[in-house]
C-alpha cells in the first residue's frame, strides 16, 4: 500500500514537473508548479514530517506561488513565442534533456552506492511542531533571527524595487 502510494505520487510529480518546464503558457506552468509543490507536501507526510508538509503548503503554494501568479497576470504574459523554428528547438531541447538525464543518472549512481544503512525508528513526536520549535529556539536561534532580518529586507526591497518612476 505504501509502495503503491509512493509510485503514484512519483509518477504524478514527474509529470507535473515536466509540465512546468515544457508548457508554453506561463500560467499553466505556474499551476503545474502548484500541483508539484502540493504533491511534494503529500510526500513529506509519507515521510512523517507533518509540520514541514503543512508549512510547505502555507508558504510555497499559499504565498510564493500566489505571488508568481500575480506577477504573471500583472505583466499579462501570453504564450512564450519560439525563437527558432521547431525542428531546431526539438533538437536543442533533446540535447538539454539528454544532458539532464546524464546528470540525473550520475546522481542516482551516487545514491545507489551510498552507505545509507537501516532506517531508525522515528523518535517520539517526530514531525510535530514541538521538536522543531525546540531546536529552532536553542541550537539554531542565530539563523532564526537572521532569517527574520532577511524577511524584513525581503518585504522592504520589492516595495522599493517595483515602485514607479523612481520616487
Amino acid at each position, binding site marked *: 500500500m505504501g509502495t503503491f502510494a509512493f509510485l503514484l505520487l512519483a509518477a504524478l510529480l514527474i509529470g507535473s514537473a515536466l509540465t512546468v518546464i515544457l508548457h508554453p503558457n506561463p500560467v499553466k506552468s505556474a*499551476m503545474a508548479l502548484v500541483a508539484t509543490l502540493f504533491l511534494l507536501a503529500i510526500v513529506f507526510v509519507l515521510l512523517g514530517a507533518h509540520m514541514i508538509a503543512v508549512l510547505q503548503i502555507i508558504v510555497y503554494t499559499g504565498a510564493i506561488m500566489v505571488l508568481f501568479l500575480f506577477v504573471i497576470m500583472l505583466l499579462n504574459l501570453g504564450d512564450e513565442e519560439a525563437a527558432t523554428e521547431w525542428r531546431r528547438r526539438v533538437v536543442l531541447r533533446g540535447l538539454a534533456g539528454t544532458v539532464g538525464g546524464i546528470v540525473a543518472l550520475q546522481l542516482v549512481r551516487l545514491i545507489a552506492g551510498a552507505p545509507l544503512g537501516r532506517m531508525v525508528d522515528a523518535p517520539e513526536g517526530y514531525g510535530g511542531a514541538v521538536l522543531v520549535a525546540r531546536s529552532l529556539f536553542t541550537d539554531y536561534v542565530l539563523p532564526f533571527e537572521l532569517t527574520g532580518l532577511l524577511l524584513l529586507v525581503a518585504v522592504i526591497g520589492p516595495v522599493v524595487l517595483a515602485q514607479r518612476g523612481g520616487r
Partner: protein
Amino acid sequence: MWTDVGIAFAKAFAAFMLILNMSAVLLWVERKGSALIQDRIGANRANIFGGLLPFNLGFINTLLADPIKLLMKEDAIPEGADRTLHFLAPFLAVFPVFVTFAAMPFGDVLIVGGREINLQVAALDVGILYVLAMSSLAVYGVVLGGWATNSRWSLLGAVRGSAQMISYELALGLALVAAVMTYGTLDMQAIARAQGEHLGGVLPLWGVIYQPVAFLILLIAGIAESKRVPFDLPEGESELIAGYFTEYSGMKQATFMLSDFAETVVVAGLAATLFFGAWQVPFLARDGWHLPGGLFLAMPHLAVVGLQVAAFTLKVFLLCCFQILVRWSLPRYRYDQLMDLGWKFLLPLALANVVVTAVVIVLWAS
C-alpha cells in the same frame, strides 16, 4: 485493517454530509431570513399541493427547484477563455474549504465494540496549521476564476478578492496563534478537551473567556476571508455583477456559491472549536452530568456522544446564523477602508493580543 479504513471512510462521509447539509440549510435560512429582515416574502414560487399553508416556506424553491435549474443550465464558456482553467477554478474554490473540516473534532470518543473511535476525521498533531494551509489555498479559486474568463470585470473582482484574502489571513493566523498559546498545543481535539473545565464548578471555561479579543479578530477576519458582506467588494453585487465568478453558469456558479456557504460553516466551526468548546456541553463529562452543587447523573455513553455532536452542530449553526445576520445588517466597506481595517487595525490588534497573552502566561506560570 479494513475496519479502520471503513471507520475512516464513515467519519469522512459524516463530516462531508455535515458541511454539505449545513450549507443547504444555511442557503434556505439566508433567503428566507433575509426576506424577513428586509420585510419582503422571499422565494415562494414553487409550491406543492397547491398551498397547504397560508404562507410558503420556500423549501421546495431553495432546496429542490433552484439546484435542479442550476444543474440543467448550459455551461457557457466565454470566447477567448482558457478552458482548462475555467474548468479548474470552481474545483479549487471549493476543495480547500471542504477538506478543512477534516481537522475539526465533532465529538469526543465513540466507544463501540471495545474500539475507541476519535470523532475527528484526521487526528492531526498540527491541526491549526492545517486549517491555515487550506485557507491559503482558497485564494487560487478566486485568482483563477477571474483570470480564466478573459473578462476585465472578473479580473478586477479577482484581484480585489485575492488581495483581501491574503491580507486578512495574517490577522486570522495571529488570532489562531493567541489561541494556540493559551492551550499550548496545535491539536484541535486536545484544545476541545481542554475546554471542559468549569470555574468554581459553575462557569464553563470556554476559549472565549480566555481570549475574547482573539475571538472577535477571528470572526471579523473569517468573514473577510469568505468575502461576505460587509467585505464582499470582490463580488460587488451592485458593481461587478458577480465579480470573479461572473462568467460562470450552471453548476460551476453553484459550486462557487457553495464555496461561499461552506466557508461560512468552516469559519463558524473554527470559532466554535477554539472559542466555544467545540463539542463540550456545560457540566457534561464522559460519564454523565456533573451539575453544580455536587449532583451527579450518570448517562449512557451513546447519549453523551449524541448530545456532544448535537452541541457542536448547534454551535456551528448559531455562529453561521450570526454571520448571516451581519450580512443583512451592515453596508459594504469601500476597498481602501477594507484594506485599512485589515492592515492598520486588525493586524496591530492581533499582534498586541499575542504580546499581552504571552506576558500573562509568563506571569501566571511564575
